């Protein structure tokens, strides 16, 4: 009976990807980054992106294959070939430790898979350097906790009451126990809407109004979730011939109806709308965040703000009620209630925090 291989996780830190990275998006959407991840796929069966400048790799190898060191060297070579000359790679049994090894290792390749290597590396790391917010780090320093080694020496569960959900996450990181499986990029979320017409539509202005009616609810749904559409597909069925499919890639994630509608109409041939459209369907595609990323310590907010973050996440998950902040949009509007709009809290962070909490 074959024994399962011990996990070996690599974290490749390849520097900031500037071109086209959308702030707030958690899924890489740039051709350069996608191409690099594709190239790294030759060395790892699973790649979990960690935007904007890193990714986790599964570097487990069989008895007959190359060693971990050889695979790590190959990964670094690939990253350099794709223009990331200052890449760093951390290799460890768990994702969180691998990430710390890449960020704080003494050389461009830090391997912590040997017995005792993990504890020796984690122990001296200062709490200020592992992503803990400054106030919490100061708070812990007051009681003599300055490094991960200090935290690891505490009895299990000692921090839970004081740091909220961040406490157990920090304890797990200090002991190197964040052994979650790597999760690859999730397929995008696709929302569709269609309408069959009682009459043959041949007016472009009417088509635009119909598109607005179809796109509005879909984009509002995406807006509530804090996502944006990056691709839209329009399918028009005419009286004669098979349906015409028009896919359009949007330049940036958006939830604006006019932007999506204009992009669709611009991509549509002039004569197509004149053929008598009898049915219309739109499909919006929006990238989804990586699920496994949220299990990491690095996304668990700390302190009172962290607790509130979890509460908001749970509220967003269990209720459809609008929840967010009032923003001033039209100071000169005669009606005071029209001067502000309710800008809803995004779903991305909320989902992330919620999953970390559960």
């Amino acid at each position, binding site marked *: 009976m074959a024994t399962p291989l011990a996990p070996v996780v690599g974290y490749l830190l390849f520097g900031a990807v500037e071109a086209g990275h959308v702030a707030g998006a958690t899924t890489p959407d740039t051709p350069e980054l996608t191409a690099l991840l594709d190239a790294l796929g030759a060395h790892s069966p699973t790649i979990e992106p960690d935007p904007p400048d890193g990714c986790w790799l599964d570097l487990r190898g069989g008895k007959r294959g190359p060693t971990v060191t050889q695979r790590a060297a190959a990964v670094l070579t690939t990253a350099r070939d794709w223009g990331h000359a200052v890449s760093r790679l951390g290799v460890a049994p768990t994702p969180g430790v691998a990430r710390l090894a890449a960020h704080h290792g003494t050389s461009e390749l830090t391997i912590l898979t040997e017995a005792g290597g993990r504890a020796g590396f984690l122990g001296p790391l200062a709490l200020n350097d592992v992503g803990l917010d400054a106030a919490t780090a100061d708070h812990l320093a007051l009681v003599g906790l300055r490094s991960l080694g200090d935290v690891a020496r505490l009895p299990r569960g000692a921090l839970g009451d004081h740091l*909220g959900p961040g406490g157990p996450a920090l304890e797990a990181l200090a002991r190197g126990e964040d052994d979650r499986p790597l999760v690859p990029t999730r397929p995008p979320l696709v929302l569709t809407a269609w309408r069959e017409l009682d009459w043959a539509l041949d007016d472009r202005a009417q088509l635009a109004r119909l598109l607005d009616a179809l796109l509005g609810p879909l984009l509002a749904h995406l807006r509530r979730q804090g996502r944006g559409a990056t691709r839209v597909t329009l399918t028009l069925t005419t009286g004669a011939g098979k349906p015409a499919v028009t896919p359009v890639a949007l330049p940036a994630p958006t939830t604006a109806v006019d932007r999506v509608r204009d992009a669709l109409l611009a991509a549509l041939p002039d004569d197509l709308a004149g053929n008598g459209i009898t049915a219309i369907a739109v499909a919006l595609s929006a990238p989804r965040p990586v699920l496994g990323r949220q299990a990491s310590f690095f996304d668990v907010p700390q302190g*009172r*703000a*962290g*607790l*509130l*973050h*979890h*509460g*908001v996440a*749970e*509220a967003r998950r*269990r*209720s*459809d*009620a*609008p*929840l*967010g*902040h*009032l*923003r*001033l949009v039209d100071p000169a509007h005669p009606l*005071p*209630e029209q*001067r*502000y709009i*309710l800008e809803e*809290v995004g779903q991305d962070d909320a989902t992330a925090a919620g999953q970390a909490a559960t």
Partner: protein
Amino acid sequence: MPQREARLAHALAELERRFGPGVVARLRDRPARDPADRVVSSGSVGLDRATRLGGLPRGHLTEYLGPESSGKTTLLYAALAATQRAGGLVALVDTEGSADGATLAACGVDLDGLLLARPTSARDALLLLTILARCGGLDALGLGSIAALRDLPNGSRHPGPVEREALDTARLLTRGLRVLTAALQDGPTAVLATNLTLPIPYSTLSLAELPPHRSTGGLALRHFAALRIAVAPLAVLPIPGPGSEAGAEGLRVGLTVVKHKLGTGGGTARVDLLVDRGLDRAEELVRLGLASGILVAESLGVTHQGTQLGRSPAAVRRRLADDGALADVLADALVAVPIIPRVA
């Protein structure tokens, strides 16, 4: 004696097994909290003193109770603004759908720091309240108002006749408030709700049999609220100057603590609510300051610890309205004064 303790321990274990952990607890098991951290300010020094706690209690439900247009919502916004001034995190569940940014900002609420929820059903509203109260990340959580919950759809998946729906909403409210008060226990969040007093109905009950403050939400809220503050309009404040027909500058309201689970009820306060500024903190500080001796009216003007603040009480009011730091100093001094002498 050890046998009796063993029996008690056995009974407690049985209770926990049947009804879940935490069903019984000794009060001494609860973590002690710093007394200064047990309350959030209501925004009014007079009301903070009237509660005899120094503010509105965290971990409990406080209800502002009054007729229409008596200033309940303005008082709620003033408490949220005061909590924000003290560095707290606040949220507002707007069941009426009437909270607009201009009014909130006029009352001193920092809109960037305010989390606003607009539930579309009573079920959603109670769910949001419970989740946000339980998370422990908020200092104050406003609900405006409980009366509007009655008019929201109850969120049932099997809607029935109107009478049935009203009954469902009442049950939902009772259950929701029970869950909410349990979720609040020992937490840092003070839940502040406004509620409408109902007119006395034509019924078979005599006036003596009716409760003095009859409100929406049935009996549930009366049981679950730790603090009930009755708000009663006293007088309309006219715009100063010639021509009283110019309109009202605000409303003077009287506040009475009609229920107090954590202390002695019966405390009263008086505040002015202005149309364009919300709660008039400066007026209250000057009035209470002079009454308590924190401020001294001398021939040259009004002084505080030997420092002249203005030539007249009106001048000090104008100065305090602009100088929030000075107002905070006076408010802190007023809270520390044990008893305010009655003004002749």
